């Protein structure tokens, strides 16, 4: 111990995030997952620029084709290119996943920090969290989307309206776990001495939260961010699969999967691509979350 202490004295002090990155790199599944997730993100962002076929271009003479050079994933019943559709659908699915996750994270962190920091608000906010946890999420999601989509479509146009609806509904119904974890961490942080020191020099609550509390609860927030993306992608696909999501000429992975199940006997490989895209993306995100959890846990780090 003393040897290492003397040798490292000359080096620059290592930051916490460098340690986290070192630990993260040792988790093989997480590295593969991260690489795959970056690959999928790049593919759906820049893919449509390279693969210039329009996802909604109808070529009825080339309908229900299997994989070929012209259409690597085949075509659907109207002759639309499945590869272009999967790329376009991935954009929407990932965008929904990330945006809904950010919304849920914002709500969860807000509720968690406020409940943990202000004692008077703790009990009512936690009762609210318990109440939201007791709501049947999937049925309510379906109900809300079915009932309000026409209003929002009229207000914001068919695609944007549904996007706002799906994202806000998923975000509003999935912040509870983040809130609980963050509250627990804030409660234990509040008892620590650096918080007492900061308070004794008269730090106001606002700066206290932003400067001292929030940076210290980043690790549980990051782990729930990855899990949030995974659940948001699955929920969006489930809604689309049940026929309540985006309009049918607007491809998302769930929508493509649901449309191709009707042609299962005729063209079975068409189902595989969107389903594989959903599953592999969610799997990679879950592995990233697993690796992050290990990397951010100081008890495991450095072993």
């Amino acid at each position: 111990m003393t040897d290492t202490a003397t040798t490292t004295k000359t080096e620059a002090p290592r930051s916490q995030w460098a340690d986290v990155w070192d630990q993260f790199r040792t988790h093989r599944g997480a590295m593969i997952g991260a690489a795959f997730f970056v690959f999928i993100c790049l593919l759906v962002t820049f893919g449509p620029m390279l693969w210039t076929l329009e996802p909604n271009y109808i070529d009825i003479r080339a309908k229900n084709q299997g994989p070929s050079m012209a259409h690597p994933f085949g075509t659907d019943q109207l002759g639309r290119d499945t590869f272009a559709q999967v790329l376009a659908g991935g954009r929407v699915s990932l965008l929904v996943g990330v945006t809904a996750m950010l919304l849920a994270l914002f709500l969860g962190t807000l509720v968690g920090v406020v409940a943990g920091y202000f004692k008077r608000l703790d009990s009512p906010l936690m009762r609210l969290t318990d109440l939201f946890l007791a709501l049947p999420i999937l049925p309510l999601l379906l109900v809300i989307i079915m009932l309000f989509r026409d209003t929002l479509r009229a207000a914001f146009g068919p695609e944007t309206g549904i996007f706002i609806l799906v994202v806000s509904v998923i975000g509003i119904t999935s912040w509870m776990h983040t809130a609980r974890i963050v509250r627990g961490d804030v409660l234990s942080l509040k008892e620590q001495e650096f918080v007492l020191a900061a308070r004794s020099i008269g730090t106001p609550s606002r700066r206290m939260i932003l400067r001292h509390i929030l940076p210290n609860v980043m690790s549980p927030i990051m782990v729930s961010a990855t899990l949030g993306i995974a659940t948001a992608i699955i929920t969006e696909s489930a809604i689309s699969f049940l026929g309540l999501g985006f309009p049918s000429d607007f491809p998302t992975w769930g929508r493509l999967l649901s449309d191709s199940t009707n042609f299962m006997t005729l063209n079975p490989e068409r189902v595989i691509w969107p389903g594989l895209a959903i599953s592999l993306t969610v799997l990679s995100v879950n592995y990233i979350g697993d690796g992050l959890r290990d990397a951010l846990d100081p008890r495991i780090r450095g072993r």
Partner: protein
Amino acid sequence: MLNYTLRRLMFSIPVLLFISFIIFLILDLAPSDPTGNLPLTIPPEVREKIRESLGLGQPMPVRYYKWCVQFFVNEPLNIWDQYWGTCSFGCEDRLRVVSYVTRSPVVDLIVQRMPQTLWVVGMSYVVGILIAIPIGVISAYKQYSWFDQTGTFVSMVGFSVPPFFSGVLVIIIFSVQLGWFPSIYDTTLKVVSWDTFMLQVRQMVMPVMVLALQTTAQISRFMRASMLDNLNQDYVRTARAKGMKESVVLLVHVLRNSLIPVITVIALGIPAVFGGAIITEQVFKVNGIGQLLIIGIQGGDAPLVQTLTFIFAVMIVMANLVADIMYGILDPRIRYD
């Protein structure tokens, strides 16, 4: 313990009332019209009459109150009367929660759909648990072995693959390509002989497989973690030092203690499985309560959707209650008082 149970039960009543009110509010605020699916030739004044006959003319608090009376008082009384064949408190003119679309009592519809859901969902949950527990035990006992690594990977896949993809995938493999199992669940099938029994088993294999994969993925992880927590405890060393057989140590001492948190997870998972069954029922065309909910939502059938969603909420609240109470009963170290 009894005191705690009673307190929790009392507390769940306002929670459930509040949830039912939220559901009612959402359904009421929505711009959905139960006459929207009727022919366009019906004149507006008749449409208004139809709406009034459905009870939509009254203000929202009155309608919510009436739904509460119908659901919490009239329906239990009706079940009581049907069960005992009696007629108490004026059973003839008792108002029941009636579906807008089918005009039959909602509870009757749910009772018709319940057996299919219970068979498929319940069976898959049982199968999933029965597979998950041995996997968790072996994974923990042989930590970091190839079995453990494979189990971790498979459960990761089980978490990640959504049921609407795994369901479609098994349909493609087993019914389109191999032709072993039927892809559509036939609920009219009555089990009277060995052949019909085999048919029933064959049509249940795929939905049960899909739902059980998800259950197994979750519960085997919990089982493994719980076993690992217990394997390093002092009482395990003591049991080994006493010279007990390894199988006794593992399967009697460690397993029984490790099952305590797992049982609460199992109880907590029941409503989630019912929720997930909504999708699985749609994939395999099982006409259970999940499919009933989808039909109700699509048809703007407010009483049906209200009642079904509320029943899901009751299940969640009750599962939480049962999990907490069981934890207290099974683990004497936990005291709620």
